[in-house]
């Protein structure tokens, strides 16, 4: 086993735990990425990576990024559900890397709903 692999993990853990210590960890929203078979085939992994990357770049740490199974919207995968505060959830479709970054910059940061990739409002 590579020693480095463990060391690096330890570093991630330390950094992550330092982040949350002494801070309010309540989240103001969450983003759900559909990672079922259809989503994966359509590139949901890259969507997930881009979302995390853009949120981090914008220093947003109070929005959780989670994964779910198939949302049953195979035709429009990758799909992403965004829920901020008590607003009704919004589902976006065909969310590639570029759209993922747009969701962070427009919806999460400014509250603008992106009507061109909107699939649905409210729970599926």
């Amino acid at each position, binding site marked *: 086993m590579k020693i480095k692999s463990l060391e690096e993990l330890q570093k991630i853990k330390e950094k992550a735990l330092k982040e949350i210590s002494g801070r309010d960890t309540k989240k103001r929203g969450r983003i759900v990425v559909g990672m*079922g078979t259809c989503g994966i085939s359509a590139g949901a*992994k890259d969507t997930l990576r881009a979302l995390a990357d853009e949120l981090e770049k914008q220093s947003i740490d109070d929005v959780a990024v989670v994964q779910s199974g198939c949302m049953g919207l195979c035709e429009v995968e990758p799909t992403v559900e965004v829920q901020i505060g008590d607003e009704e959830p919004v589902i976006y479709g065909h969310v590639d890397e570029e759209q993922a970054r747009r969701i962070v910059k427009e919806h999460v940061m400014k509250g603008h709903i992106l009507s061109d990739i909107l699939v649905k409002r409210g729970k599926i």
Partner: protein
Amino acid sequence: MRTIADHVLDIAQNSVNAQATYVKINFVEDHEKIVIKIKDNGCGINKEELSKIFDPFFTTHEEIRRVGLGLPFLKQNAELTGGYVHVSSTPKIGTVLEATLFKTIDCQPIGDLAGTFAALVTSSTGVTWEIRRCLGKECYDFSSKALDGVDLSSPKVIKMIFEYFKNMESSL
């Protein structure tokens, strides 16, 4: 599924869907073949169902909108290379999947394995993941035990884990 990495992500999610709390993935590659082994402690598969798991559209998860194409796709792609997929399972104990793909002209590209591992590890908090990845003689090991207590839904953490696996892959 365009890549082997996509298959691994898809197949390992079967273990999560089977309520596994422990999933071990071995991904061992050499110059002629790729051997994938995924072992879980999920609900397992009974004999009758086991005979159907490679049938397209067989699923026991209809209520959660599954299509039942994960295993048939993998089998088809493995067999195209002269390889195979084998699943053995004991109800209430768990399931072991082993797949061998030969690196023939028909073999799909491996794809973004780092992304697959990162996505799996950050997909749910209830699962302990152990991953062993080898390329030739070089290997690395991952255990999610090392990340106990870390918030896996934090964008920053997700990003670090994506980078971690990317670094590990490029060190091989």
